[in-house]
């Protein structure tokens, strides 16, 4: 069986590296979930320390953004469309799920096309779609903004919280508190942006990076590729997920993003403000920007006390090192977003590692 062979090779390479611990960051939340779901840590030698990263868009959305969205729906008559995970994330005093139960028009959707269709069919309603995600979902948001523009819709808006991954990775690599020996790079983001934007990781920081698929074999193969690079002391950016990712990425999707969005500074939960890491609508499309159309008073929010989401997102702490984990903070009563999101590290730990048998 291929997995057995890959694992034997991993064991040999780890032995040859002769290091007490090798920290590999799984940037993407989906990788964290799949590693947990398949029990992959059981197949890896103890020297390999898989640490979680900030690749979960819901998790890195700061509390203040939730507060702002709730402030908008409490001050204006809005139908708000959101992906399911977002509505459970707690803000400072409420959540979209709670607002929904109070009667606010909050709709869970699986595709922004549904929000667009609703807006077209209900011209008397103001519709906001919460556009969240990394480079994977940004092209789709671009498409619907352009469609809204073509249809001359006056009642459709996006609340843009899109972020981009490479600047966040650079922020992590600059952080002296975090020791990373290798990066398992996100599969879906890379399908859009390709491998070139990550080259600074190996060129400037001498750290190996491998773009990995999501099946167990792909993930283990990517780990093996990182170890080989460490042994050869020749870090580079490689693609394991060759069926989906090309070096140049998906140029059509990249162009879609550039057509509609420009880059801005953005605050990431746990990482703080990262220059050039967020996306914002270009002036040509500013009429669809919910933040401009529905101004609100300035808010001050703080992250919840004792919540370690920030440190979990940087890989400094494991979820069960947070005092709130599984006691006060559970998937059904979350304090921080890492517990809520379907890609959240705390949710993965809660679901798959919490109980010992």
């Amino acid at each position, binding site marked *: 069986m291929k*997995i057995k062979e890959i694992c034997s090779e991993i064991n040999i390479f780890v032995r040859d590296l002769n290091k007490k611990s090798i920290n590999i960051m799984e940037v993407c939340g989906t990788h964290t979930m799949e590693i947990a779901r398949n029990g*992959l840590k059981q197949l890896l030698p103890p020297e390999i320390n898989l640490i979680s990263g900030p690749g979960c868009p819901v998790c890195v959305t700061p509390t203040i953004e939730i507060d702002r969205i709730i402030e908008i729906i409490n001050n204006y008559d809005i139908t708000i469309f959101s992906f399911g995970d977002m509505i459970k994330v707690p803000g400072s005093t409420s959540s979209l*799920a709670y607002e929904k139960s109070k009667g606010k028009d909050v709709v869970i959707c*699986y595709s922004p096309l549904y929000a667009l269709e609703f807006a077209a069919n209900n011209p008397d309603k103001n519709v906001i779609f919460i556009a969240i995600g990394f480079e994977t979902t940004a092209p789709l948001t671009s498409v619907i903004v352009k469609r809204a523009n073509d249809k001359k819709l006056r009642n459709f808006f996006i609340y843009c919280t899109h972020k981009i991954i490479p600047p966040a990775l650079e922020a992590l690599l600059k952080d002296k508190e975090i020791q990373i020996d290798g990066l398992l790079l996100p599969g879906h983001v890379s399908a859009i942006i390709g491998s070139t934007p990550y080259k600074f990781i190996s060129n400037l920081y001498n750290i190996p990076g491998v773009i990995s698929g999501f099946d167990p074999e792909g993930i283990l193969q990517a780990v093996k590729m990182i170890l080989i690079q460490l042994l050869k002391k020749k870090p580079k950016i490689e693609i394991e997920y060759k069926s989906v990712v090309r070096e140049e990425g998906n140029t059509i999707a990249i162009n879609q993003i550039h057509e509609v969005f420009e880059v801005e500074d953005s605050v990431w939960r746990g990482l703080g403000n990262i220059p050039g890491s967020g996306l914002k609508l270009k002036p040509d499309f500013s009429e669809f920007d919910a933040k401009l159309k529905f101004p609100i008073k300035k808010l001050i929010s703080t992250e919840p006390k004792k919540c370690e989401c920030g440190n979990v997102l940087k890989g400094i702490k494991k979820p069960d090192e947070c005092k709130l984990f599984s006691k006060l903070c559970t998937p*059904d*009563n979350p304090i921080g977003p890492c517990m809520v999101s379907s890609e959240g590290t705390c*949710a993965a730990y*809660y679901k798959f590692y919490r109980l010992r048998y």
Partner: protein
Amino acid sequence: MLNKRNKNDFSQLKVINISHGDGGLKTGELINNFILKYLKNELLEKLEDSASLYIKNEKIAFTADSFVVEPIFFPGGDIGKLSICGTVNDLVTTGCTPFALSLSLILEEGFPLKELENILISIRKTIKEVNLSNNGIDLRIVTGDTKVVGKGFADKIFINTSGIGLNQSNIEISPSKIKVGDSILINGGIGEHGLAILSQRKEFNFKTNLLSDCAPLNSLVNDICKSSDKIHAMRDATRGGLARVLIEMSQASKTTFEIDKVSIPIKKEIKGLCEFLGMDPFYIANEGKMIIFVESKDEQKVLGAMKRNKYGKDSQLIGKVAKKSQGVVIINTEIGTKRILDLHYSEQLPRIC
């Protein structure tokens, strides 16, 4: 239980939210913290699919269920068929024969009578199918109620059914009978009802050939019980999926289950859709799946009987009862690792049944 809560639980004690209906932990909280708090008795607190009542030493099963599925007509069934199957299946899980049903309708003003007719025809057809193998008993709807509410105060039609079943063969089937070493069987593929419903929801927009597995399982259960007198427990998997049944049964019987993921039947289309949508088929609703706990020496006999039944062609052995414990379900993955199956995560699919 509610005393030490985080202040971020905004919904605590204030309002019902949609996840109270998901069949997972939140539903459990609602039941434990409200319904049982005020109405607890030794029968209700068992929280079984149907309650076993003793009337003049005769055991009867009594159950009730409500149906709010949206859309009301879906591939493979409709709310009428569902309302009969749901209650019949709850009765037969304790080895009882369905004897009588009630049918209560809440109708929205403006609901087309033609659609009501189609639902009633479907109800009649489903009862007729049940009666083809109902141990000589003629199941009928013997009482009911009809209410009409103004437009916008209900969504077309809501149905409640309750049912009585007779324990004709004096068999005792319950989670307390589950023993270490028992084999765990299922009569076919998981996740079909949930995804069939989802495929019809406006926001999904994907074309499939998926059909709900909605079916009355009394004939299957009869065949199972005829093939072996070592059936220890049964439960049908509905909201919350296969995961909920396994976790609840392991906790009720205080045993550890070991489940082989690779053995769980699942249609290719379901698997592919789940991967595409990021859903876990373990947690997706079914409406025609029964999980059986049988002494291992009768495992092949029962499996054979199941496969000969119309609703059991894809039956499989999926695991074993491994040992006594506080109640935990372990999945043996395809790659030879182990992990826990947890109830706390549930698919957010409102109005699935």
